[in-house]
């Protein structure tokens, strides 16, 4: 095989078939995919959760992960946030002509590893190759299907005054890890992306409490944006405590240097849960019992006044509004 991806790899001909069989099918190894029919076919019993996402992270490889791992985790987590058990993923690549084959193989291996870790299968896929310059090395699109258990009703609009707001761990790790290897902003750090599948954690949480109101993973836009979304959808206010939000020292330091606020930095292995106050302790324990949730804490609660607003207690006796992210968190100098 060639050592770089060529336009022919996306054209459906011999090279394309070789790529699918020797690279994708071998790594992703499951009976549904191996049939290589135009569609994957499965039977379902119950409510389906269905999600789609595209991944365009640059660079495609960063401390703690790569675009492949990100694609699986992102999709699995979207399903988990609806309380679904993730089952099947589709995987479509848009590859820039000239991408070294080894780079692609590394991404596919990541996908395979992460899929095994999450207990999901990649059952169908697609490959396109575009001219040099038409894609930034590699874009990935996914779709995912999961099953929602009976009685599970999790939605961003379910939060009620008096509920507690839980956060599963430190914020800002993913975004700052990616920034640390981006051209022009590089600083050296041992920070790694927190990219991880959270479906096992969510299953444990649902066992601990059947009445979880909301689940959301604070990805782009960070914790601040997610909390604003939930407050808006539910028509409630959320008050959080600055001191209770866990942030790694390295993330704080990197944010200080670049003039960024950890509240707005993307996370790929964390979740926010809104639960009835009586169940908060049990759910918190379920999160902490999971390796991805060691740093979990209660960060605030839901209120009725000023619906849609998120307010933070600063720790010097004052409070301030936490708005959604507007635009990109550009590093500032001023």
């Amino acid at each position, binding site marked *: 095989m060639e050592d770089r991806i060529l336009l022919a790899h996306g054209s459906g001909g011999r090279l394309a078939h070789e790529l699918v069989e020797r690279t994708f099918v071998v790594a992703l190894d499951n009976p549904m995919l191996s049939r290589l029919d135009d569609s994957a076919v499965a039977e379902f019993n119950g409510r389906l959760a269905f999600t789609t996402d595209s991944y365009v992270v640059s660079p495609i490889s960063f401390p703690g992960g790569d675009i492949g791992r990100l694609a699986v985790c992102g999709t699995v987590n979207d399903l988990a946030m609806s309380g679904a058990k993730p089952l099947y993923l589709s995987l479509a690549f848009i590859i820039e002509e000239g991408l070294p084959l080894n780079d692609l193989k590394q991404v596919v291996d990541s996908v395979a590893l992460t899929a095994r870790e999450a207990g999901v299968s990649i059952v169908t896929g697609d490959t396109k190759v575009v001219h040099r310059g038409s894609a930034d090395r590699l874009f990935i699109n996914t779709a995912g299907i999961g099953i929602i258990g009976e009685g599970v009703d999790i939605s961003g609009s379910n939060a009620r005054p008096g509920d507690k707001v839980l956060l599963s761990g430190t914020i800002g790790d993913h975004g700052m890890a990616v920034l640390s290897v981006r051209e022009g902003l590089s600083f050296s750090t041992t920070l790694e992306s927190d990219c991880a599948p959270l479906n096992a954690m969510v299953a444990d949480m649902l066992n601990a409490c059947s009445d979880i109101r909301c689940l959301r993973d604070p990805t782009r836009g960070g914790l601040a944006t997610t909390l604003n979304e939930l407050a808006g959808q539910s028509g409630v206010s959320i008050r959080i405590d600055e001191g209770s939000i866990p942030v790694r020292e390295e993330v704080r*330091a990197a944010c200080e*240097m670049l003039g960024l606020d950890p509240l707005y930095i993307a996370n790929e292995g964390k979740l926010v849960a809104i639960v009835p106050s009586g169940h908060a302790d049990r759910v918190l324990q379920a999160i902490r019992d999971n390796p991805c949730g060691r740093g979990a804490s209660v960060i605030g609660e839901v209120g009725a006044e000023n619906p849609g607003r998120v307010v933070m207690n600063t720790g010097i006796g004052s409070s301030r509004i936490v708005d959604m992210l507007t635009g990109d968190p550009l590093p500032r100098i001023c």
Partner: protein
Amino acid sequence: MCLAVPVLIKSIDGREAEAEIGGVSRRVSLWLTPEARVGDYVLVHTGYAINVLDQEEAEETLRLLEEIAALNGDEG
């Protein structure tokens, strides 16, 4: 204006230094602070150290503020 962050100088190489804050490292230029030494804390603005921090003054300020806190405690 202006974002400047206190970092610790770990090593110096000519007019450049390797500096660290909270476990994060970056190269900084010492063009504006040629007097900086390893072990000093400097304020870094856009990749340049603009001043050497006075650690004694920092401690003095905190002591002063703690005194105020103590006095308040007495009055309050």
